[in-house]
């Protein structure tokens, strides 16, 4: 399968800041690809380079087999949805959507009636036909977003690019629109790339996720893959809540800096960093436990605990039923056990699986080391 868009060794510098560092990436035909990363990771710069709104300092962008460098933004047949929508404020919704069809040179321009028909069809698709005569300022955020989408689709682009498509919307609208966009993608199967800093959005929406950090690609993979098999500590930390624990590997045993045994891992001896997600930690009531429950809050079906352990505090999450069964309260002493985890021995290296110890003494206290 040839790539719809091929990015070969693209670099971009803004002043002294290296925004993109030798990026290689294939976008497959018909897929919905997420560029995920914190702000400043270069994801928006990459999207703008694909769109032709920015020129790379080095490297190539290929559309099919053709180098896009000779094509201006307007000739790339790319639909771009801006973060703040960038609707033309002095035009009605209808005129906004029609814009891309009206600026075509006269010889190739569609007849007026055909343009009107296509715009109406697009507005019906985004469920906004009844707002055709409104001005952008009269619309809600979600409506503006859908107008921007219809406007981008009007030129029948080969690729749809979306910059933080849900960033400016409130949580409920964001969720609805996310589902709606996924359904739309299933319908039209248009090759799409979207930029986001929200891991939930990337994991829920995308066929594949590209995790970026400081101008580099950390990992490319399916949503399940990047979550369960992170290629680097950065990816693990960026995708979801987690607890970071400095540790040592000693003959396959993972030992915390204060001497407590965390688990086992098949890794060479030396210093390492272990990550355990809140739901991978178990608590058990133990009178001489090293840890103490500092705070407990119910969050929907989950109870979130902050558990003090020596100098540090760890996040623990469990179902409400389990919390009720345990019968624990704030200030109770507990022992902690890690069911799973990820151990990173060197930065940029994939994780080694952390397995629980048998017997599961976990983070049980060395007597006398109970801080609190």
């Amino acid at each position, binding site marked *: 399968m040839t790539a719809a868009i091929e990015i070969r060794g693209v670099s971009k510098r803004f002043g002294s800041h290296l925004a993109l560092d030798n990026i290689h990436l294939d976008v497959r035909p018909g897929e919905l690809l997420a560029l995920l990363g914190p702000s400043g990771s270069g994801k928006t710069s990459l999207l703008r380079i694909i769109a032709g709104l920015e020129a790379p300092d080095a490297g190539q962008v290929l559309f099919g087999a053709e180098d896009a460098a000779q094509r201006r933004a307007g000739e790339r047949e790319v639909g771009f949805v801006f973060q703040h929508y960038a609707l033309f404020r002095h035009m009605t919704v209808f005129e906004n959507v029609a814009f*891309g069809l009206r600026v075509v040179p006269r010889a190739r321009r569609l007849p007026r009636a055909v343009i009107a028909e296509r715009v109406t069809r697009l507005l019906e698709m985004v469920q906004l036909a009844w707002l055709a005569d*409104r001005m952008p300022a*009269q619309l809600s955020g979600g409506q503006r977003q859908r107008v921007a989408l219809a406007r981008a689709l009007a030129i029948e682009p080969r690729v749809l690019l979306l910059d933080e498509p849900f960033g400016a919307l409130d949580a409920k609208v964001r969720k609805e629109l996310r589902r709606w966009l996924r359904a739309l993608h299933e319908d039209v199967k248009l090759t799409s790339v979207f930029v986001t800093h929200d891991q939930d959005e990337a994991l829920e929406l995308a066929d594949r996720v590209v995790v970026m950090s400081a101008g580099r690609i950390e990992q490319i993979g399916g949503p399940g893959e990047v979550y369960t098999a992170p290629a680097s500590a950065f990816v693990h930390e960026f995708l979801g809540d987690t607890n970071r624990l400095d540790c040592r590997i000693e003959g396959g045993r993972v030992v915390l800096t204060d001497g407590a045994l965390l688990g086992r891992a098949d890794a060479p001896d030396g210093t390492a960093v272990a990550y355990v997600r809140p739901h991978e930690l178990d608590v058990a009531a133990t009178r001489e436990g090293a840890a103490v429950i500092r705070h407990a809050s119910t969050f929907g079906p989950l109870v979130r605990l902050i558990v003090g352990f020596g100098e540090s505090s760890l996040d623990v999450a469990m179902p409400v039923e389990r919390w009720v069964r345990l019968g624990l309260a704030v200030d109770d002493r507990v022992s902690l056990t890690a069911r799973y985890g990820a151990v990173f021995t060197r930065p940029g290296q994939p994780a080694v699986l952390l397995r629980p110890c048998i017997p599961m003494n976990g983070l049980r206290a060395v007597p006398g080391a109970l801080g609190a």
Partner: protein
Amino acid sequence: MSSVALRTDGSLARPILIALAMLVAGVVLGLPLAIVLVEAFARGPGTYLAALVDPDTIDAIALTLIVALCSVSVTTVFGIAAAWCIARFTFRGRSLLLTLIDLPFSVSPVIAGLVQVLLFGRRGWLGPFLAAHDVRIVFALPGIVLATVFVTLPFVARELMPLMQEQGAEEEEAALSLGASGWQTFRRVTLPNIRFALLTGVLLANARAMGEFGAVSVVSGHIRGATNTMPLQVEILFNDYQIEAAFAVASVLALLALVTLGLKLALERRQSVLLTTKGSAP
């Protein structure tokens, strides 16, 4: 307690301050305007009309309109280009350009006129060259236009810059990505977005261009019927003790200024109406 005291102060201070502002504006700004009109008609409409149909006066009015048209056109094109550059790009010399645009606000117009004479005058730097090619700038229309351009240059640029900076480049980028050419983007997106500020800038520049005295006085040479603009004509008539005629011409000048201000006011009304209807929620 102190806040209560402050509030009592405020309730008194507000009408006093408003009255004071009104009084100063009335005496300093309104009264002279009224006097111009009263004096112009002091000897009846006959004298007034006679003063206006004087050939020299008609020439002065025509020249003023031509000069305003030329210099405001230059100011407008320059203003749009400069504001666009400054709002969209960061480049070396950007702050220098900003400072230069403000120069006419800080430098006396007389100096601008003198510089023209020193540059283009018969004994100026370029004087011999211009004389050899039979080009007249000083004491002719080009000199008057140049001097007026100097004075009006900041008006459009200063009006547009903050607006274009606030609006950002996203709409222009959207137009480009939808296939619009540079010119289409300018005409269909950039220009409509700045139209009100642009018109305001043009009207202000126009008012200034028609009223300019200092710079034009130095470069015009005061040739009656040829290089006299309306402000210069008013001065000449006044110095010739033709007080009624001076006031008649002054009244036309004032009237043109009032029309300009009226247009600006109407424009602002229309803009605010458009914004509120756009702003109303569906």
